[in-house]
Every structure is written in C-alpha cells, then in structure tokens.
C-alpha cells in the first residue's frame, strides 16, 4: 500500500509540471520543452540552498523566479527572434544543463538529512501522511491561484491568445508579451515541481529532468481525454482533472512496476502509455464517423 501512497505523493509533486504544461500547451498552444531544464533548475536551486541552510520558505520564491526567467527566455527567443517555439525550448533546455551543473556544483546532491518542507512540520505522526497533507495543501493553493488567474480579465486574454491571435491583437493585447508571461508562468510551475520532488526524494540530481516533459504531457493528455469525454467547459474542473491526470499517470507507472515489469523498461512503458492515451480518443472517433 505504501508503494501506491508514494506514487500518489509523487503524482501530487508532479501536478505543478502538469499545470505548467497545461498552460503552455493547452492555453497558449505552444509546445514548450524548456520543462526538462527548468524542472532540474528548480531542483538544483532547492538542493544547493538547502545545503546552505536556507529556509524552505526563502527557497520557494527563488525557485519560482528562476523557473520564470527560464520560461521568459524561451518566450523572448520565440517571439522576438521569431524562432520556432520547439527549437527555442530546446536551446534554453540545453543551455540550462550547464547552468544547473554550475548551480549544483556536482552531479548529485543529497539533502535528505536537512530540514525541508516535509520534515519541518509535524501535523500528524505518520511521516507519509504528514507529507500527503503538506503536499495537498500546497497543490490546492497553487490550483486555486491558477484557477483564479484564468478567471480574471487577464486570464481570459491569456486563454484567447492561444485561440485566436488576430482577434486578441485587435482587442488591444500585446500577444508577444502575453506569450512571454505565459511561458514564464508555466516554467515557474515546472520549477516548483523540482522544488517539491527534491525535498520529497531527499536529493537533487543533474539528470532528474531527463524526459520529465513526458510526465507533464501524459498528465495533460489524460486530463484532456477526460475533459472531452465529459464535455467539461469549467476552468476549475479542467484544472482538477489535470491534477488527477498527474496522479493517475504515477499510479499507472507504480502499477507497471508492481506487476514486475523490468524497471529498465519503465521509460519505454511510459512512452507506450502516453501513446495509448493519445490514440484512444482518435480510434473511437474514427469508428463514430
């Protein structure tokens, strides 16, 4: 059972990435893969600051700003230099690898015996349940903030930017600035996942971000399938489904390991699983028409 609880906790940690990918991919319609770099950046900043005995509450805003800067850089390259968003993301992600290595100072940094977000507060005795409560509060606050943002006038303009650029420009919105803001927000959320995971796992690692974008994509695609399935239009329910997507994704991976699949095949399994979810709606759609 603990096995699945860990998967649930991990899913909740990754829900910030899922929200980030939801914003860049679904709201802005930009395939942003800065993710791998900004996630590790969040983790590296957290790791190094923890070892320098900074409080987790001091680290939090630094991680958010670091992630936002990475995203804004991708946004600037994409909008001002008119470079394809995918390439802009790859460039920043590649560059970030060196940055992360410099920040971290070495390839792996253990932080498990340092005071962190999860062992600093003892709400209940059981450490796993304690972690669950803290992560849940964290995720609820983030989701509430993002949900509120999307409901505001600024948020409606954000949603329209990925939808009909000509319209939103005619309505007086600087779409370039909007996209840069959006990518900054998305990568700040991604870095936040790095922050949570490092404190949860107890170490920061230079390769922790490799392929992490698929976790976000998979979660969003699960959510999107559910959104289309139940014809959801509410912003709030969509966000909750994105969270659910992140958790379901980790539970499926945990299940795959539990039934004895070779851990070396895990990434292959992940890719296959995402392929399956992406193709399912299309298959049934073809039958219907």
């Amino acid at each position: 059972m603990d096995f699945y609880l860990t998967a649930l906790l991990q899913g909740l940690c990754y829900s910030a990435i899922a929200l980030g990918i939801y914003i860049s991919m679904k709201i802005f319609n930009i395939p942003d893969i800065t993710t791998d770099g900004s996630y590790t950046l969040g983790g590296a900043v957290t790791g190094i600051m923890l070892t320098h005995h900074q409080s987790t509450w001091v680290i939090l805003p630094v991680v958010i700003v670091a992630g936002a800067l990475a995203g804004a850089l991708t946004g600037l390259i994409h909008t001002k230099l008119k470079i394809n968003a995918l390439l802009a993301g790859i460039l920043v992600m590649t560059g970030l690898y060196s940055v992360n290595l410099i920040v971290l100072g070495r390839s792996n940094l253990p932080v498990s015996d340092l005071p962190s977000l999860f062992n600093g507060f003892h709400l209940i005795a059981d450490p796993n349940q304690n972690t669950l409560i803290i992560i849940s509060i964290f995720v609820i606050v983030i989701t509430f903030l993002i949900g509120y943002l999307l409901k505001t006038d600024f948020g409606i303009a954000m949603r329209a930017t990925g939808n009909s650029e000509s319209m939103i420009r005619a309505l007086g919105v600087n779409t370039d600035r909007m996209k840069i803001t959006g990518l900054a927000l998305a990568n700040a959320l991604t870095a936040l996942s790095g922050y949570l995971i490092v404190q949860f796992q107890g170490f920061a690692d230079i390769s922790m971000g490799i392929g992490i974008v698929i976790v976000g994509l998979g979660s969003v695609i699960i959510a999107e399938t559910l959104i289309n399935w139940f014809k959801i239009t509410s912003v709030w329910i969509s966000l909750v489904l994105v969270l659910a997507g992140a958790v379901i994704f980790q539970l499926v991976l945990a299940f795959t390991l539990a039934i004895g699949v070779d851990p070396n095949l895990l990434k292959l399994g992940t890719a296959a699983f995402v392929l399956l979810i992406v193709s399912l709606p299309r298959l049934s759609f073809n039958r219907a028409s």
Partner: protein
Amino acid sequence: MIAINDIHKVFNKGKANQVNAVNGITLNIKSEEFLVIVGSNGSGKTTLLNLVAGSVIPDKGTIIIDDNDVTKLADHHRSQWIARVFQNPISGTASDLSILDNFRLAAIRTKPKGLTIGINDQFKQQVKEKIATLGMGLENKIEQSMGTLSGGQRQALTLLMSVMDSCKVLLLDEPTAALDPRSAEVVMRTADKLIADFKLTAILITHNLKDAYNYGTRIIQMSEGLIINDLDSTKKATLKQNDLFDWFG
C-alpha cells in the same frame, strides 16, 4: 477622422516575388463616413485596411486617426480607436472561449486586462440584452463556447462585440465572404444599423457589388495599389448598380 497621406507598401522588396501592394494612396475619411472599397483580387484593398489597422506598417507615408499620428503604432495599440471584423469568422472570435468570455474581452478592448474578475451578474445581464437585439435566440447560450456557433452567428456577434467598448472606427474586411446569402444579409444589416446607431466611421471591403451598391456613403475602386474611382455620397446616390458592374467590365 482618418487621414492617409501618400502611403506606400511593398512586400518582398528586391526579390523575384516583389509585390507593390499600395503605391502612394492619399485618402481622407470624414467622421461618420461609411466607405466601401471595391476592386479585384490583388488590388491592395486588404493591405490598405491592414495599414489602417496597424497589422502592416507602411514603407512610406503617414496615417492619422482622430488627430493622432499612428503610422508606426502596432495594431494592439490602435485598438483604442479601431474595432475589426475579419473575413474568416474564426479570426474575429476565440472558438474555445464562451460567448461571455469573448464579450468580456471586447468590453475591455481599450482598457488594460487586469487581475480582477470582470464577469459578474450585471455584466451577464448587459451581454444578454445586447445579444437579444440580434434576434437570433443566442441570449440564453452565453455560456456556450463560440466554436459551437455558425459562421453567420459568429460574424453577427463579432459586430456586436466591436461596440461593447468605445469605438470610433470599424473595419470590415469582407465580413460576409464566408457566409450563405441569408446570413450575409443579416450580418450586413446589423453592421449598417450599428454604424448608424453608434455614429461610427466605417470601412467595408467587399466583392459583393450589390452590398457595395446598397450600403455606405462613399465608394472607391482600387486597382494595382491605387484609387481609380472615388464617388462621394451625392455621386454614390446617383450611381446605378449596372454602372458598378461596368467598373469591372
């Protein structure tokens, strides 16, 4: 209201596919004038409209809107005077957003989009009343996404959205080109009524000579980036529909 002075625009300058879209047009559009532009494909009509809107910045010449020199101003800055309806209904509205969200954005076209929630019961009521004037029965569907509506409904709503916030200039780029004849008529009538009711200065591009004949207070014909015919309201009143067909003869 709009003063265009000796404006030029060349695309792909110096390349084999160079296009001299607009070749030195000078045009003064008075306040509350409803200008209709006709001309064959490639005559520079849409470029001229994009120059006014700011989607295209001229190589030479000046554009003054309401006594402000806007020649170098980007389109999202010109939105404080200008509202647009595009040829493609998809361009003028956001498909995935609800009708209500679309109207909210239109209602704050000239204002900053801040971090407050602007949609409240009062606003919903206001939107419902506005939409009811179209007589399309859409007032009870404001939570529905724009994408579920037909092209005609979307164009009619786009028109209505343009007058949600203060608007001086309305640009219509073949707003009925993608519509069936009946929807096209509804959209043109709505446009004509809004232009009169809100005392707008309007520019309409159309290939429909019947619309060009029926609507507007002034008509110009363009060819190869120049104005080759210009009839003011008194001359347009004496114009016969067949004369218009002769322009393209």
